[in-house]
């Protein structure tokens, strides 16, 4: 259908539209008009992708000078494929409606197998690739340098974007890395020796270039330098490589010294936590290495590898990692911390020294994106509370809105179970984890649910260790046997192959027979990527509140930093993180308006206002006061009633006019009024 959104003609490739899609497109258009950034939360399974694409493509066609490119960033390859599918449909619709062949070019960069050729990016109107190509400073300058300023960047499924930013700027160095680096450096030295004997001209040429301060032709671009080094002023970026690492031999000697220093640092017996300036001071005292040559380390190494014409760069990954670490530690003085541990917390007896160079401030990696592109949209199904993202990513959005689902029948039923039938409070709190009664109550809950819910149930635990403990206890108590009389049980492990096999068999079991239960973990592979549509997920049970491991030193350093810089309390942040994972897990079950599912939060802490308030709006509005702090019996009653209702036939015609609209219905006055209430500005 052809829509009129605030004066803009938008081609929408389907005959029916959801009111929230229209509302979403309206907000999006306003954000683009304002040429600013936006944070939009829209529930999963409501056609977010096609709304985004159709509006932005229409905007591009109408104002080709305002928006020259659309950059769509997604997390995984399957998601990229889905986007391309929708885009194809949209393009076919355009050709059908306008009758002319459109000249839009869309490019997808997915993996090393599908490498693109750079010049094509210049002409493409739409580029689809993964977050890392834009956020990771090591890759950003290679891939994203030709992108113009007047582009719109969309980060889809961006609820974890702060973790992506942090990971892209963090480095972990183990003893093994250093040993491999040693071999790399020796290889470099031998190669240099050999080249000096055979073809010394190449090295001399490189030396001359470094002396003149000439940069490689494709390195000295303002755009990509900006992306890879966001906080350096331009004069420093244009500087020549310092004289102490000009010749190849001196540079190799420099690397050796740095390597030996790192090895010495790893030979400690207690934990050390330092900031970047302290680390640099120590380096200078021990091996007389200054800050400036460290900063140019990565660039110098790249130049050397190119001059020596080393074909297989992957062999040199260890020394590249070390040089990246050197550049990062010398460039940023704030926002990073160095933690050296002689062994991992979980295995105190195994000697495994590791140096964690972790970024505590996600805004460092994403700042260049916000400053360079005129409109950046961050969207996902679970972004609550919305105001935290602008604070931790340090940007000012012109729009922050949360959308609900308009439903003809209430297809989600969130319930908070806080007590067992014996009135013992259920919780995954650390103190009550070993409590026999709590484990038995959890088992009872699963048992009762397995008896009344048809087809598949997915259960999420807070950690692998916790899951294993509980399942072992259930086995001893005989609960597992009772559950297996109702449904088959599959379990997710840390091994990828086992998990995919378990998933496959789970799906097979749901297809025929009484269905199955899948036990998995809240931060695992299943919760991040797999959708449980229709009969694959009729109920999702969240056992406990999925807090991250709070004793990790890196986490503590990060919380401290957040408190000092952004005045975000530690408790607030931990709760926010836990609740976004919980919301992601329960959101797996609903993918579309004809789908229905139970969402059971099995922990008494969910009833508290500070946790409930951090759930996304589209879940919160269905939590009534009567569904807080239920016992298992009450839960079973409510679920039975809900499931029976949902099992009644529900056709598309029932939805028309309420949650599904045709073009005529869309344009009626009252509908437009209702639509304006869907979006809630924050």
């Amino acid at each position, binding site marked *: 259908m052809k829509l009129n959104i605030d004066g803009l003609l938008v081609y929408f490739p389907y005959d029916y539209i959801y009111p929230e899609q229209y509302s979403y497109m309206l907000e999006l258009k306003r954000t683009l008009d304002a040429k600013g950034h936006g944070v939009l939360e829209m529930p999963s399974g409501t056609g977010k992708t096609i709304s985004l694409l159709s509006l932005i493509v229409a905007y591009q066609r109408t104002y080709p000078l305002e928006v020259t490119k659309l950059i769509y960033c997604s997390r995984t390859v399957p998601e990229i494929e889905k986007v391309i599918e929708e885009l194809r449909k949209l393009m076919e619709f355009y050709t059908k409606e306008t009758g002319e062949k459109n000249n839009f070019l869309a490019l997808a960069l997915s993996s090393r197998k599908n490498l693109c050729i750079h010049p094509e990016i210049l002409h493409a109107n739409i580029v689809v690739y993964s977050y890392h190509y834009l956020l990771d400073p090591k890759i950003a300058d290679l891939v994203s340098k030709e992108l113009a300023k007047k582009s719109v960047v969309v980060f889809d499924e961006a609820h974890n974007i702060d973790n992506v930013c942090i990971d892209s700027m963090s480095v972990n160095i183990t003893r093994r890395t250093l040993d491999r680096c040693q071999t790399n450096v020796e290889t470099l030295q031998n190669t240099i020796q050999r080249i000096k004997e055979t073809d010394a001209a190449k090295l001399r040429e490189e030396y001359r270039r470094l002396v003149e301060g000439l940069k490689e032709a494709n390195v000295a671009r303002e755009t990509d330098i900006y992306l890879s080094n966001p906080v350096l002023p331009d004069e420093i970026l244009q*500087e020549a490589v310092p004289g102490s690492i*000009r010749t190849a031999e001196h540079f190799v000697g420099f690397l*050796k010294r740095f390597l030996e220093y790192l090895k010495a640092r790893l030979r400690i017996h207690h934990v050390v936590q330092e900031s970047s*300036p302290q680390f640099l001071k120590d380096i200078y005292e*021990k091996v007389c290495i200054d800050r400036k040559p460290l900063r140019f380390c990565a660039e110098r190494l790249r130049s050397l590898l190119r001059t020596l014409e080393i074909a297989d760069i992957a062999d040199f990954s260890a020394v590249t990692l070390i040089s990246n670490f050197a550049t990062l530690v010398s460039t940023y003085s704030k926002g990073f911390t160095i933690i050296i541990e002689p062994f991992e917390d979980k295995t105190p007896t195994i000697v495994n020294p590791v140096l964690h160079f972790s970024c505590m401030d996600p805004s460092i990696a994403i700042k260049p994106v916000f400053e360079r592109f005129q409109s950046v949209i961050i969207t996902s199904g679970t972004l609550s509370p919305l105001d935290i993202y602008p604070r931790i990513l340090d940007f000012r959005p012109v729009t922050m809105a949360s959308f609900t689902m308009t439903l003809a029948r209430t297809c989600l039923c969130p319930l908070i179970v806080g007590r067992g039938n014996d009135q013992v409070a259920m919780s995954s709190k650390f103190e009550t984890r070993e409590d026999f009664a709590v484990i038995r109550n959890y088992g009872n809950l699963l048992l009762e649910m397995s008896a009344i819910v048809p087809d598949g149930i997915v259960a999420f635990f807070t950690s692998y260790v916790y899951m294993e403990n509980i399942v072992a206890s259930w086995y001893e108590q005989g609960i597992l046997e009772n559950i297996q009389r109702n449904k088959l049980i599959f379990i997710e492990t840390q091994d990828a192959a086992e998990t995919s096999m378990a998933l496959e068999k789970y799906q097979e079991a749901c297809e025929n027979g009484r269905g199955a239960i899948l036990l998995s973990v809240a931060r695992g592979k299943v919760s991040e990527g797999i959708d449980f549509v229709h009969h694959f997920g009729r109920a999702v049970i969240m056992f406990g509140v999925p807090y991250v491991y709070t004793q990790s030193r890196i986490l503590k350093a990060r919380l*401290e930093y957040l408190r000092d810089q952004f005045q975000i309390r530690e408790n607030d942040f931990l709760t926010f993180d836990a609740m976004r994972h919980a919301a992601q897990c329960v959101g797996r079950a609903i993918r579309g308006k004809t789908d229905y599912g139970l969402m059971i939060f099995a922990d008494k802490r969910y009833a508290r206002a500070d946790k409930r308030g951090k759930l996304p709006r589209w879940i919160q509005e269905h939590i009534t006061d009567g569904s807080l702090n239920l016992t298992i019996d009450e839960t079973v009653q409510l679920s039975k009633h809900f499931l029976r209702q949902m099992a009644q036939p529900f056709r598309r015609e029932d939805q028309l006019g309420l949650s599904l609209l045709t073009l005529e219905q869309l344009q009626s006055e009252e509908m437009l009024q209702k639509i304006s209430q869907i979006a809630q500005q924050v």
Partner: protein
Amino acid sequence: MDDQGCPRCKTTKYRNPSLKLMVNVCGHTLCENCVEMLFVRGSGNCVQCDTPLRKSNFRLQLFEDPAIDKEVEIRKKVLKIYNKRDFDFPSLREYNDYLEQVEEIVYNLTNNVDVESTKQMMEHYQRENRDIIQRNKAKLTREQEELEELLLLEQQDSQQRRLETLQEEKRQLQAKRKSKQALLDELENSQLPASILLAQHKDRAAQLETQIEKQKQSVKPATIFSTGILKGQTVSLAPVAHIEEVLYKYQPLHIETFGPPVPGLEQLDRIGCRGDFSAVSRETLTPIIQEVITWYLNHVRTATPQDLAGGYTSGLACHRALQDAFSGLFPSLI
């Protein structure tokens, strides 16, 4: 590093993990015991390369590769002499060339290439640039001290902030508890109906919430001292350069009027409508003449004692009026 053996008594290193390895200027390692034994016999030559050594030159080995230890030692010595910094050079290119030169020297000394000539060059340089070396040394120690001070300040700051936030949170909790307790007490003792008390309590709770919210927002990380200097800015402790300027001399304004000059303040009671009698003494002026002549001053109201106390004299007003009148007479046409 623990699998390295002492080149002399090889076995001892494995058996005795607490044994330390020492490195000397030739770059070869020896364990502590062997060092003792070597100097007991009085001979001071390295086992592997036979260079003459002194016992004091042995240092504890920090790095796995003894060559690196040797290089670091040499580098530290060289940098003590070659300690010019980037502001000593007119251009970046020259500074980089200087750095490269330093690297060459270290490289030569470490790999025993041209040792003699390099040492001579170093001594020559040292003699020539003695004062620059001294000055830079002083500057370096000062900068290091400043840096340490800053780091210490930062640490203290963050600790204080942490304490403050903890105390703040405690206070908020206490306030909440107090208000709840107050509600219960009121319900017990007061005569008002329960609904009014509840409404009051809700009001108070809401007020508390807004207070807390406001406090949260108003806390800003203190980055500036009250004088406007940024925290973390290195303030140079060198004395401010004394700038000598020309002293200002007051030149009174002179306006050319092409006419008779304005009478001065002191002469107002001597100059009158018939002429200037300032040169004549008072006694010679007969009373009759005095009557006929009206001094300028007579045209102005005499100052009362209160005016005089404030510093006002009638002469001021008269002078001003005369100046006004004269300035309009012969304007200079510029």
